[in-house]
């Protein structure tokens, strides 16, 4: 049986009459990179705060690294976290800010410079936090989360404000940590990012867990699509009609036909096109991206 780093059972948080999280059930396997997705206000940060002992649940239970969240002191020394953006003392330098947290957690101060190096802030470590750009603040937040050399890393929107190379670096850091056995639980709005790095996903919508499992399982459960492109654009309408007459659901998008069908239908489509005297320039099967799946599942396609 797979070991779990995080397990939530009916985890609930109610503010007044509004449920920020309602009966949340999910598991995050140990050593995995697990994405945590959901529209704004769906309960992601509330859930993370409950897992870190900052908020008391209204109901249900959860365990982190095998310990109940009612005793955060038992597991937090092994957990690194960056919650809802980096929060530091503006008048202290990046280095001093990390030293405050290192002293508080009882970690060696030598780790501070190693981590500043790791997040590419070594040359700005002595500058005051208030002079940092958003990307630098974010990197410092990640460095702070790595202070305990964590077994579990919880990151809330770690790539906010980072440029493409910064995003790539964070992805690299996350992968390195996962390779060394660290479990990473990461929320992000950049779903294409999560699709690339996450083996597991927990998806929230309006305070409810609507999916928890392997990313592949989620994506393969979605309807695939066949994209066919005739050699000549003038054949698009004819081909669409031919396929439509044969019972396929077809739409024309950007000079190609999008056909709601599984891979097995490729041969049939090719044959129907050939019989109509149309040569296909290309035919391919595509699975919906995580983003498309997310929008479909959450109904949030704005």
């Amino acid at each position, binding site marked *: 049986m797979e070991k779990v780093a995080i397990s939530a059972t009916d985890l609930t948080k109610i503010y007044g009459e509004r449920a920020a999280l309602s009966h949340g059930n999910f598991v995050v396997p140990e050593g995995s990179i697990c994405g945590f997705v959901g529209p704004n206000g769906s309960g992601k940060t*509330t859930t993370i*705060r409950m897992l*870190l*002992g*900052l*908020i*008391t649940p209204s109901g249900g239970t959860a365990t982190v690294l095998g310990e109940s969240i009612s005793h*955060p*002191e038992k597991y*937090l020394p092994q*957990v690194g*976290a960056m*919650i*809802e*953006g980096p*929060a*530091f*003392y*503006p*008048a*202290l330098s990046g280095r*001093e800010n990390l*030293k*405050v*947290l290192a*002293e*508080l*957690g*009882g970690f060696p101060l030598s780790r501070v410079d190693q981590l500043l190096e790791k997040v590419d802030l070594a040359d700005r470590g002595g500058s005051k936090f208030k002079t940092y750009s958003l990307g630098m603040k974010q990197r410092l937040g990640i460095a*702070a989360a790595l*202070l305990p050399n964590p077994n579990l890393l919880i990151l809330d929107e770690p790539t906010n404000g980072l440029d493409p190379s910064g995003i790539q670096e964070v992805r690299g850091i996350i992968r390195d940590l996962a390779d060394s056995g660290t479990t990473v639980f990461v929320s992000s709005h950049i779903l294409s990012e999560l699709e690339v790095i996450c083996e597991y996903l927990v998806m929230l919508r309006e305070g409810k867990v609507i999916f928890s499992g392997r990313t592949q399982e989620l994506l393969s459960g979605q309807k695939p699509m066949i994209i066919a492109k005739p050699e000549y654009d003038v054949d698009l309408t004819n081909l669409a009609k031919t396929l439509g007459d044969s019972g396929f659901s077809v739409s024309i998008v950007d000079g190609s036909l999008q056909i709601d069908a599984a891979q097995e239908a490729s041969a049939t489509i090719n044959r129907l096109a050939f019989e109509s005297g149309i040569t296909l320039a290309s035919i391919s099967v595509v699975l919906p991206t995580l983003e498309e799946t997310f929008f479909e599942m959450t109904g949030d396609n704005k």
Partner: protein
Amino acid sequence: MIRVVIAELRKLRRPTLLLGTIATVGGLSALFTSIIFLMIDSENGNGERGERISAAELSNSMGLVYGFKLVGVFLGIVALCIFASQTAQEYSLGTLRNLLVRQPSRMKLLAGKFIAMKIFALVMVLFAGALSVAISFALAGRAKVDTSSWSSSGAMQLLFENTLNIFISTLCFGALGMILGLLLRSPISAIAVGVLWSLILENILGALIKSTAKWLPGANFQNIGGGGSLDLSYKHSLAISALYLIVSGCLAAILFKRRDVAN
């Protein structure tokens, strides 16, 4: 808890706060002590509320601590502001969540924070006292004050007692600031409420209904710093102050322990 104290001291010793506090406290200490010696012949008085302190009075062993005693209440207000802002800023900056992830025991965090601020307040009081004593010696000649009794054991004991009283008074004001910081979670609100109450509202209340002064927190904290007065005994002030701080401190601590950290 020692880790919390060390971490807090790192924040408190940042140059802007440390040097700013030293400059403020040093300035106040220098100002009040200088007034006593430089305005010794002024008809408007050279002491608290226009009181005239003569060269003869300054020549006795108490003369060494007059200036320091005057600055005591202001040290309390400075401590109130620092304790309040250092506590409330953890909420307003959002740094409390980082602290609690690294130190989940909220009571240890609170106690460590208070101990660190006590150390800071002690440094502040000792600096103000040392500066006041140095200025007193420096200006005594000009004010024709005989300083021979200032180095007696009686004067040293008075200096020690006054330093202790001012330190206790400063801690009381500081604790009030910390409690307000925990309750209001905003540095500006906590400082505004604390200073307005201690410096203005209590004085208005005390002037309107004289008997209330005996029971108001600020008046009692201030009275501790002065070593007691004819109207209000030192022991009474200690007891009332302890009562206020224990009750409000427990309330604030329970709130801090139980309240969700949602910002």
